């Protein structure tokens, strides 16, 4: 299964950020992370940018915010992640 789900919606800062950083570094080829949170993880994106990850942020159905994350150049993971992300509304700050 290429999808790994990380639910941090009940964790206090900085745990969500740390769990995300831990988990994305263990992604295998073809895998992507579905990161579920109660708010947009503003401080995560720079880490992702600087470390070769892509992210697609959406309003979730069960969570306020869902971020789909995959490694740069991993076309399989990118395709799967974007297909799932497309089912959710694109993130907007309003």
């Amino acid at each position, binding site marked *: 299964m290429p999808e790994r789900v990380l639910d941090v919606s009940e964790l206090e*800062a*900085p745990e969500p950020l*740390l769990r995300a*950083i831990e988990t994305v570094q263990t992604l295998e080829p073809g895998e992507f992370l579905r990161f579920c949170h109660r*708010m947009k993880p*503003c401080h995560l994106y*720079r880490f992702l940018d600087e470390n070769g990850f892509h992210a697609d942020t959406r309003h979730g159905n069960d969570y306020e915010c869902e971020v789909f994350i995959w490694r740069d150049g991993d076309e399989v993971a990118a395709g799967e992640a974007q297909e799932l992300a497309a089912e959710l509304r694109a993130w907007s700050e309003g």
Partner: protein
Amino acid sequence: MNYTALSLNQTPPLSVPLPYFLAAPLFAAVAAMGLLFAGPEFLASRWTPGMLALTHLLTVGFLGTTMLGAMQQLVPVLVGVPLPSQRAVAYLLFPLWIAGACLLILGMGRATPVMVQSGGALLALAVGVFVLLVGYSLWRSSSRHATVRSMALAIAALAVTVSLALYLILSFSGQLPLAHPLTGLHIGWGSIGWVFILLAGVAYQVVPMFQITPEYPLTLRKWLAPAVWGILVLWSLQGFFAPLIHSAWLLAAGLVVFALQTLRLQARRRRKLADVTLDFWRLAMVSLTLSVLVWAFGQRFSGIPVELLVGLLFFVGFALSAVNGMLYKIVPFLIWLHLNNRLQQAGQWQGKVPNMKQVVPERHARWQFRLHVSAQFLLIAGLVIPVVPIQAGAALWLLSSLALGWNLTGALRLYLRIAKESRQAMA
């Protein structure tokens, strides 16, 4: 796991915000001491020299110092760009601000115009530099985050507050014209425009992050700060135009909406774990609501010093409680972040970095919270019930302020100890 990748690019060095956070409790302790040793004339009105000094110990000394430090920390992280020359600015601003605050407050307490003028000039210079630099960063930011927008409005309100203060000080040769209409504007812009809007903006970010609540509703995040700012403008112009609307009531409604919404979010938090910051913030929101109720209906009850009580509930009950509570998240987070980064970049040290809850132990913070609540309760009782001496509340407030200072310096001691151990281990 290696967290060195947890970027510190935007995070200023610990030496930028920490001096502000460590200095602030001293101002609160001096305010409490002033009240403890004051004579009965001290509380005769809000315009006595002692009461003026006490108010500014709280607003400039405690709140202003903490907020200046916190904004130098938060703005670069939120907008993703460091402040221009952040280290030099912080090191210049801190002595300027502290010297200005001390001179202003001493001048007010002793009714010495030259000290008030000198202190006011130093503070105005510090605020001028601060507003220009932070304003420039916020203006350049493409962020549409509600916290960034609120911060921009808050620093604009700070500029208005300080300009009014400077005008009052200089126009009257240091003799403060206490009942002047501009004094009312200075208080309104300082308390609601600067303190309230900034705290609300920061709350949008930190309440969900640290108190595990859902986000504030989008409409509130988007409109509360601009609406309050706009109503403040209307309220300020009411002296010039016939009052078309009851702007003071609208301001009061804005404050209550924010307080009740925060309490509602806290009641809906996902994990019902005990947390001292949560308790400080609950106290803050109840106090904010009470301050509005006393302002609105206090005159109906004889024997209640409405102005003093509103000031106590707003500045001590609301603002001081909220800032005090947040310090127990911000300081441990910064200590943890910088220790982690420093030690893991060094690479060889095998010791364990303490987690946030170990940086300031919960039981220590909990004791300080108990002292703070008891102090606030006794201070209110001292104002309202003649047989309760105000000194009882002042004594507990002094202990509470010292305990806050001790807890925060404890975090610094821990940082220095671990940094030293790691240096020795790698030597």
